[in-house]
């Protein structure tokens, strides 16, 4: 009897997990598929909204964040890692030649 109960409860929970997973997957898929004019209009990643204000940061984590300030899309302390990865070489020739001599 106990064995059956454990099996039923486990199966029930597994079904709950599966349904939650399926619902979540379909919810995000439909979010991705539908156009979102507010997101387009604002043009800011929503997750940073409310997070980039220095007052709203968690100082325990953001203690290193002093140099780069607000950047749309991420916390500045981590952004220092991202900036050098911007893959576009600087244009122009920076060598100064002294042709007058």
């Amino acid at each position, binding site marked *: 009897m106990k064995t059956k109960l*454990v099996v039923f409860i486990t199966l029930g929970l597994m079904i709950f997990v599966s349904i939650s997973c399926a619902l979540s997957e379909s919810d995000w898929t439909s979010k991705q598929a539908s156009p*979102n004019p*507010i997101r*387009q209009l*604002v043009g800011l*990643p929503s997750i940073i*909204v*409310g997070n980039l204000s220095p007052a709203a940061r968690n100082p325990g984590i953001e203690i290193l964040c002093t140099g780069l300030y607000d950047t749309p*899309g991420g916390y500045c302390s981590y952004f220092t890692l991202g900036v050098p990865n911007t893959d576009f070489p*600087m244009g122009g020739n920076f060598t100064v030649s002294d042709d007058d001599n």
Partner: protein
Amino acid sequence: MNCIQRYKIRTIVVLLSLVVAASLFSSVAFMKDGLTKEGELSLKYAPDLTVQGISAGRQTFIETSYMDIIQGIGGVREVTQRIWGYGNVGNTLLVIIGIDLKNPGINQAQAYPIESGTFLNAQENGTVIIGKAVAEVLNAKVGNTIAVLSETNQAYQYQVAGIFNSESSIYNADMIVMNINDARVFFNFPVGKATDLNVYVSNVDPANYESLINSVARVISERPNVRVLTKNVLLDSQQTTYGARSGFFSIVWTVILIAVALIAFNQMVVVGHESRFEVGLLKSLGFSTSDVIQIRLIESATLGVIAGTIGITIGILYDIVLNAPVLSDFMIGWAVLYPTFSVPVYISAQTVFLTYAITIIPLLFATVIPSWLNATVDPDIAMRGART
């Protein structure tokens, strides 16, 4: 199942430890996936390039005169300006976004998700649209006037023209959208300056998109005092942020898992001694050593599946029903400063399977040596030893 029930102490100890480990891991992983997904979704609609002003290495205003220069670069479709920042309504910190309504950079024919009232009018100043959750916090309705305190300690009043209900709970929770002229006055921005410029490039073949972005970014970055951010950089920074944040929890979780594995090892050794008669009996009936090890491993796998299932269920309920108290503060920031909102949660099949895998596999590893020691015993000695 009978073996699991027979050794109750072992079962309870291992099950409890595994449930704690699985629920902690799954709740953080679901939240991290949700936040990353939310970021990806917004970045899909973000401008191709964001141009900021830089002065002495610090981000500052950008000259709007750059708009004409950038517009003249080949491959650029549109350039818009944006003014945004933060303001207080009472004790609530809100994000204020000023939009250039005459040139918003998107297709105006699209319907905004306005729940009540209307969208902003380009010709009208002094009006705002606010998120649904903001309206609830401020108890504001369409037509009401809200007062927002600026950094100059002046309270500016705006009439609520509409309330939007975006599918993003974060947008709804702390955003006020207004005309860029109003935002300029509110933030006391000098004429000819903006927070940043949004650059949209022409539609090109996806294969050529990166090279177009890089070439436009290169030309812009030749201008003095500018920093150019691409979508990829923004996405990388978000993923790094949440990866690192969940990484802190991964460390805690790994320590817990090691502790669980040690507990499981210990319990299996104890059970091994207690079950000597049982093993001896099985071996005298013709079961081989590998059969006995298999039985022990099946027991552990069953225990892992039960614990993983309970742990994931707790993780889901903790994130969705309880809105992830404590952990969401860590992942998002100070929750007290902005209105409460439901944390984006993404219960992906991948994370569910990963949770099962990391719950079951270490338990199997912790079980295999005690099982082997237990199974290699001589049946006669085992049965006599167990009886004496």
